[in-house]
């Protein structure tokens, strides 16, 4: 059994209830989690991102109500993850009214704690994102892996409850990915043997992420053989690793900020394991991400994690003025800040006129939005493909973005090669 966490005087003040019962509850949760992490101390955080806004059940409301009733307020800038309802587009809701009411109640309670109502799973697309070396307390698995890996900020894989607790007391357990030692690479993933044509495929990054999550669990992978990657590609990769695995940090040699060379990233040690990726591995991932190969297309879902501005531009280009078949709607999930930015550029108007349904504040894979769930849903997101079959009971077919868009226009799954 480890020594317990040493608390500062200010931490004790929270624990003793000097900031009210809500903040006291927050500190009690944080200290228990710090002990489970073997954290020697707590550390100040610059920001928090809270992933508790998704309505799971009565506990979702019970917990945040205890904080609100106990007069708690966040003490650092805090953004909010997706909720269960699209507050701006209630017409897309296809679930029971009772659930929508509870979901709105939960979202409202979080806002009452002083959080900014951003309602996005991609807070790294917002202004004022965290910088290299900053300690933060983020929830939402894809946001965590992006903040650690692409921005070089430092957060553990905080689950629901802990993220808001950290936001209230402005502290986090100094353990794991907050420390230099915790950020060392562990598994070398070598893609140098893959043909360039394979790596140029749109689906390459999410497929690779699906595999890396399976191989690494919660360990830190280091990718060798990728020379450039866009933030959108790293976003898709990271989201996939955090779905099949618990990856919270990856390094890409020569690309991500803490991976200048192998010596730096492995801390002078040898990798625990080296995995050479083959095209056969990627084909396996492709097939695992689909629950069914054929059938009537019901819908096309993209934007998981939430669409970025460049992704909106790319989609507009792929559509090229054509319309989506109304019986096979194309859904795009986006944060309201990104929505507002592309709206200024006239893009939302163009897309909505083409029949595209842009969902904000939530995501099509976790809440009843799709009008029809007995057909086949196409997606280019490994994360969507991983979660949606159970969450909303659909059959899913994974494909490149271009196949998704062309199929939405054709109203049927177009002929396409697998991987």
């Amino acid at each position, binding site marked *: *059994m*480890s020594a317990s966490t040493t608390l500062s005087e200010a931490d004790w003040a929270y624990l003793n209830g000097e900031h009210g019962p809500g903040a006291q*509850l927050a500190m*009690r*949760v944080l200290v*228990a*989690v710090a*002990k*489970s*992490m*073997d954290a020697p101390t707590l550390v100040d955080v610059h920001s928090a991102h809270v*992933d*508790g806004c*998704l309505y*799971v*059940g*009565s*506990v*979702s409301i*019970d*917990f945040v109500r*205890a904080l609100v009733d106990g007069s708690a307020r966040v003490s650092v800038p805090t953004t909010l993850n997706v909720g269960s309802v699209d507050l701006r587009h209630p017409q897309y809701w296809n679930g029971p009214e009772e659930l929508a009411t509870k979901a709105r109640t939960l979202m409202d309670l979080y806002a009452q704690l002083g959080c900014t109502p951003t309602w996005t799973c991609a807070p790294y697309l917002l202004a004022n994102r965290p910088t290299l070396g900053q300690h933060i307390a983020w*929830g*939402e*698995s894809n946001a*965590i892996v992006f903040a650690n890996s692409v921005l070089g900020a430092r957060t*553990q*894989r*905080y*689950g*629901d*409850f*802990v*993220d808001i607790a950290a936001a209230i007391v402005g502290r986090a357990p100094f353990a794991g990915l907050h420390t230099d030692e915790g950020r060392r690479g562990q598994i070398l993933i070598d893609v140098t043997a893959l043909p360039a044509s394979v790596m140029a495929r749109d689906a390459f990054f999410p497929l690779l992420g699906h595999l890396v999550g399976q191989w690494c*669990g*919660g360990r830190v992978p280091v990718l060798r053989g990728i020379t450039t990657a866009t933030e959108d590609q790293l976003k898709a990769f990271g989201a996939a690793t*955090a*779905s*099949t*695995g*618990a990856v919270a940090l990856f390094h890409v040699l020569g690309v991500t900020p803490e991976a200048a060379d192998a010596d730096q990233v492995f801390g002078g040690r040898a990798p625990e394991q080296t995995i050479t990726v083959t095209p056969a591995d990627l084909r396996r991932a492709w097939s*695992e991400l689909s*629950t069914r190969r054929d059938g009537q297309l019901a819908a096309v879902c993209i934007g998981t994690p939430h669409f970025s501005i460049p992704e909106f531009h790319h989609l507009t280009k792929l559509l090229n003025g054509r319309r989506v078949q109304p019986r096979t709607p194309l859904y795009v999930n986006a944060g309201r800040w990104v929505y507002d930015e592309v709206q200024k550029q006239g893009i939302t108007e163009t897309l909505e006129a083409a029949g595209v349904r842009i969902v904000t504040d939530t995501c099509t894979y976790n809440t009843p939005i799709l009008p029809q769930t007995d057909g086949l849903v196409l997606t280019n997101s490994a994360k969507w493909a*991983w*979660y949606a*079959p*159970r*969450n909303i009971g659909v059959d899913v077919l994974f494909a490149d973005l271009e196949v998704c868009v062309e199929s939405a226009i054709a109203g049927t799954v177009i002929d396409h090669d697998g991987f």
Partner: protein
Amino acid sequence: MTDSEPLNTVRVLLSGIAEGVVLMLTEPLNAWGGLDPGTGTIVHHRHPQRGSSVAGRVLVMPESRGSGTNAQVFAQAWATGNGPAAVVLAAADHVLCAGAVVSRELYGVHCPVVVATANSCAGLASGDIVAVCATESEGTLQILARRTAPTR
């Protein structure tokens, strides 16, 4: 029942005392989309223990994986009385711990969460009856009864 089973020392993540039937997961469980908190049943379409219930069981698992929403899913299972009686992990999982702490704070559910070495779990199988005893300072795991007599 046998008296010869050893008392294994485990690392305590959350204290509590529980006795129950083991449900051994052969793969990590992503509870969000993988566990129905209203019944405690594992529902992920690809999980090898799909259809088994964690309710009242001593849940033995490699680790949970994936979403931070797992904390809420487990807490909801505890809130409705469908959570495990104890959790035995192969590696520390603070997401699961957060769910367990909140259940303790809000509902008074004291589910011990411990980390056992591969050695302590060797030979443990679904259906065995075990006792988990975890205080702030030390924890033990003991097999009280085997589901079936060892075959060799």
